[in-house]
């Protein structure tokens, strides 16, 4: 084991600002430039391709239990191979295996940044992402305690257990033994410079205000959307019209029916109050 604690998990429920922050980090480490199809971060925890290249095994020929156990070794190895900090995206809820051991290796983890967004807006954005009705998104994901991404056996990513929105937030903010820095999407939008500057210092990255501002400009919503329009975005779901859709807060007010908003508020009342989404 390397003894290095250099993995920074970029964790979130889907459509909560993770990709935006990865684009910002890429620009920050790349002289203020970002290509959305060549992000400078180190992949996603659910990638079968990364797993296979380290394990030398075909992911589709392994059981779920084997994959859980082997993944920890994969990320310990990747940590050892990286001199500097590595940023790994993860949508899985923070969870443990049957023996109570966390599925991500805490011994090589530096910290996590957890992105949280109002579930009313998440529902709208996630529905667009999957090109499916909002009602289905609420039932299948937001309010589903067994919500899971990528369930098809031949998918390119392992299934990602999300749980419901509240449990996802709770899992990351309360269970890890390493520092978790929470960023609210709404705060990222309202005060981008100070929020981003504060979190990169906490992570242990040191950049000038000018460098931070240049990276923010390069990764602005308009800039990312323009790139998607010009050359597409490989992380977009095939059926979705676009990945960078609106990028604003409060779009739920125009899209959700009152009863859809109520069903989300009722299900997630406690966590929404804790995060400041319900007074």
């Amino acid at each position: 084991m390397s003894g290095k604690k250099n993995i920074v998990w970029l964790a979130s429920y889907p459509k909560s600002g993770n990709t935006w922050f990865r684009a910002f980090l890429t620009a920050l480490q790349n002289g203020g430039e970002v290509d959305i199809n060549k992000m400078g971060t180190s992949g996603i925890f659910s990638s079968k391709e990364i797993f296979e290249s380290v394990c030398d095994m075909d992911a589709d020929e392994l059981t779920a239990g084997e994959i859980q156990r082997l993944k920890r070794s994969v990320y310990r190895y990747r940590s050892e191979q990286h001199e500097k900090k590595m940023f790994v995206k993860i949508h899985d809820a923070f969870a443990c295996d049957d023996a109570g051991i966390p599925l991500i290796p805490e011994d090589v983890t530096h910290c996590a940044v957890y992105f949280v967004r109002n579930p009313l807006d998440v529902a709208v954005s996630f529905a667009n992402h999957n090109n499916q009705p909002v009602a289905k998104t609420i039932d299948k994901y937001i309010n589903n305690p067994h919500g899971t991404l990528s369930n098809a056996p031949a998918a390119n990513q392992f299934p990602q257990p999300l749980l419901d929105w509240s449990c996802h937030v709770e899992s990351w903010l309360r269970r890890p033994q390493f520092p978790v820095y929470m960023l609210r999407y709404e705060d990222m939008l309202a005060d981008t410079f100070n929020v981003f500057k504060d979190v990169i210092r906490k992570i242990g990255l040191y950049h000038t205000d000018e460098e931070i501002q240049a990276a923010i400009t390069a990764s602005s919503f308009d800039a990312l959307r323009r790139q998607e329009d010009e050359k597409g975005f490989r992380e977009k779901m095939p059926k979705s019209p676009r990945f960078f859709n609106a990028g604003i807060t409060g779009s739920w007010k125009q899209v959700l029916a009152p009863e859809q908003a109520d069903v989300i508020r009722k299900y997630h009342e406690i966590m929404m109050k804790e995060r400041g989404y319900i007074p």
Partner: protein
Amino acid sequence: MRNIDPEMTLVNSPAPFIYQAFGLILSSEIVFPELFMPDSPAGISSDVSIRLGKAPAKESITGTQKPFSAYNATEFWFLKPGIALYYVKEGREIVIELLGGSEEEVRLFFLSNALGALLYQRDLIPLHASGVITASGDVYLFTAPSRTGKSTLLYMLTQMGCRPFTDDVCVLQPDEQEGAETAFYATASYPVMKLWGETIKKFEADAPQAQRKLRPDIDKYGVNFHHAFDTSPLKVKGIIILEADKAGKEISIEKLSALDAFRAVEKNVYRRHWVEGMGKGIAHFRHVGALANNIPVYLAKRPVQQDTIRTFAGAIHQVIAPGQEA
């Protein structure tokens, strides 16, 4: 050629068993129902011996060290925890140390990894490809990363009347007789297609020939085609790169330039990440370059937004067997 009885036992009395895979003769202490058994094995000299035994310690292998493998140009060590440990040496010897896996599991990781490493050690760069034999006896190969649909396409083409050549892997070698590496010959791996239960169900193939689960807890099956298997090197007529197209709405098939062909084929070498650690960088580059310059390479895109696999298989069938009805 004959179909092999899938009944078997791991440690058997009349060992060694003689098999043929990738054009090599394997002499094995254990039975492999997946592999092809030559018609007259008596007296045949083997290229590779497979035996049960104790593998050396991982630390003794110099070179690349990964969590479950260690390798260099002549040695490969691979652990599948709870199943077996595999040690491959100098392209001639494979030792299997049993660690409690079932017979089919021990064989599964042998076939995907130990055999793959053996090919590298023998300077046979394997291509991640499935393929079919044309009416004239040449082969068309289709290559792509895992989970793009190679096995499904192979299965569908066999349903349309094509003769299966190989699934997942084959080796390619230039024809030295013809000189200047202008022609390439492919040798098949072994006569099994690996298909998801969902695929078999979807295309209504109830128990086609011998079919067995690859592992007890995984809904994936090996479908034998021993009866149609050809062990000889066959001339490669073309290579088709399969691409799942996220944005497109139409199936398209276009011939690639030599440069684009090189890039596309290079990415699809089997276990590409072994090339450097096994010291095959130069051979790999030269081999793929010659291939891309001399074999027609096509890019076939399939829109993934719609269920187009049947239409796609029909379009590929038109390239392979022009004018023939699928």
